[in-house]
């Protein structure tokens, strides 16, 4: 149990720290790398929640896919601009106040709720259960998701196509 707590807290520190770095660092490229760390931290959180499959998906799709795409986009735009894109922020004070206020209220709301502290027993092989559920109960959304991703793929290609 104490190992769990220790893991959670260390993951939490990593996650929050890297997230802050994402929104505060000036270098856009560094920000993307910090995001990759944050996404990896999230994968660790998924592991703590016994969702090994999701952790894997997170690492593969997110940390791999998104970071690759973003880096690609940065490179493309920087090449088009012909200079290094720096990342600056505006209205930091107001944004911080609103975000902090929202956080305060959210935490307050969460603290007021009676939520379970104990984890119920679940199937030993969660990955198998997820796969079965996706292909039985949620088969229609799953197929629609495939259509959506195809449409997104085509849309992205269409948007990003070179000028005729």
């Amino acid at each position: 149990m104490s190992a769990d707590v220790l893991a959670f807290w260390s993951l939490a520190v990593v996650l929050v720290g890297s997230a802050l770095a994402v929104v505060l660092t000036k270098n856009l490229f560094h920000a993307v790398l910090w995001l990759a760390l944050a996404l990896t931290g999230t994968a660790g959180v998924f592991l703590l929640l016994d969702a090994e499959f999701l952790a894997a998906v997170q690492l593969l799709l997110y940390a791999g896919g998104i970071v690759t795409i973003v880096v690609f986009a940065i490179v493309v735009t920087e090449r088009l601009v012909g200079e290094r894109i720096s990342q600056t922020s505006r209205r930091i004070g107001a944004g911080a106040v609103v975000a902090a206020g929202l956080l305060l209220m959210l935490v307050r709301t969460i603290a007021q709720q009676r939520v379970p502290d104990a984890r119920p027993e679940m199937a030993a092989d969660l990955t198998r259960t997820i796969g079965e559920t996706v292909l039985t109960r949620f088969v229609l959304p799953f197929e629609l998701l495939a259509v959506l991703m195809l449409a997104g793929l085509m849309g992205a290609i269409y948007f990003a196509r070179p000028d005729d």
Partner: protein
Amino acid sequence: MMAADGILALAAPLLHALAFLVLSVAFPLRRLGRPAAYISILCAAGAFAAALLSARAHAGETISRLVWTWLPSDGGTLATVGVLADADSTMMLVLVALVALLVQVYSLGYLHDESAPALGRYYTYQSLFAFSMMALVLAPNFLQLFICWELVGLCSYLLIGFWYQRPAAARAALKAFWITKAGDVGFLIGIVLLWRHTGTFDLTEMRVLAENGAIPLAGLAVMTFCLYLGAVGKSAQFPLHIWLPDAMEGPTPVSALIHAATMVTAGVYMLHRTSWLFALTPEVLAIVAWVGAFTALLAAVLACVQNDIKRVLAYSTVSQLSYMMAAIGAGFSAAGFLHLLTHGVFKALLFLGAGAVIHAVGSNNLTDMGRLARRMPHTATVFTVGALSLAGLPLFAGFLSKEEILGAVLAGGFQVPFAMLILVAFLTAFYMFRVVFLAFFGAGAPAAAVARGAHAEAHVETVAEGAHAHEAPHAHEPPASMLLSLWLLALLSVAIGVYFTFVHPEAEFESPAWLMPLGVGSAVAGIALAWATYQRRAIDAATLAAAFGPIYRGALARFWIDDVFERAYLVVLLGFSRLIGWIDRYLVDGVLNVLSAWTVTAGDDLRTMQSGRAQDYVYGVAVGLLVLLLWVQFG
């Protein structure tokens, strides 16, 4: 049988209403003038017959009450309309019908020169007035009474302003309307308060309550005082008496009907009809008596210095109405009512006689008249009959009723008002015979010069010597239609006088034996003084005026009451208007301008929020979410 009698009484106002409707709807007929007048007179004659018959039917204790529900309220009836015919109301009905009929006949001659449409308009108003007045007289409840009260006020306004092209007439009409309205506000408040207090508008029901002692006395005095305020306005009591002399700007027959015999007596009549209610509040009755006596004296003094024959009669009317008020205030309303009836007859006679003189001379001014008796013997005779009646000499109409009032006031325990009224009796005889001698007999110009007032005093001597008696150049007897009305009223005055001289009705109170000689004596003294001053010229009128210096000058200025009203009007109403104007301009408009300016500025400021940048909208969403959470948590 009872219902039939009630319908008979109802027929009288309805006939006038019929005439009014026909004349107002069929406007081509109205514009023909004379045919319209004939229709109106025909209906008036029918109404008079109906009134006479219903008076005969209700002479004793018979009371007919015909009511129809009018305003339904949940579970009952709020108000009714109909007629309440008893001995008093039908007697009043006869008076109204009679004077209305005679005045309408008389007007045919008097308004001979009017254009046809104006004549039609005149008779339409006359019919409306007669209908309203009769419905007022027969009103079974306060609500109908009030509505008709306002209707007669409207007709008064319309008829005073009949010659609306004349600024003085238009002003007088407006003045009459406003001043009486001031009293009517009190009247209306009184009616509503009374309704809250007793739960009914109905006179009969309220009387039963009053006689059973079922009306709580607390606060009742305020209500009766409010009712009295209505009578103060309508019956020209001090300080609201100022409209009546100005009302003389209307045609003389109108003055005879409305401002002498009927409408102005509505206040007295109303107090008489509700005397059982006023009996519960003796303190208000005392006010009525004192104000009545004071107004009587005031108006009598004012009447003595007027040059305009109609204004003399107008102040005389104020004075006589106040006489009736004094009797009612003393608690003997029957005496006041009796005087109301006799006064209605002889004052109508006086006004119509004055009208005949004005018609002949073409002027209201006493200085333009003199020695008319030779040219107009009929008019002179009937006018003298009227004057004798007003003075209250035996064998003439005012005789008994005046003594009744004096006795009533004395029996009511009002010694000072009684003394004032005796003085008024003397002054009444004096000013009436001043008019008689100046207009019909007299030696002419000297008297006329005096009558012009204090400013002319230096002028007097030069004119007095060798001045010829002035005679109106084209004075002639009035046409038959006017003479008929005059003689009928004169004969009626004498008949009433003779009747009361020999037949005394049972009095409600004991009068001392010296009362009647005193009353008659003061009247005779007044006549004698007028005779000595204006006929024999044994006493110089200027000396007489000088003897009463301050009073005389005050009276010439109408005791500044009109000025006070005018000043009050200027200060209060105009000041109030200015205040309202200021509030409207700077406060109301200011607030609105500031609001609109704020709206414009706020719009300008809010517009910048619409930056078009998606980020700003996210910002807005976040703030909105924060506010929502705060509201849920703390709100």
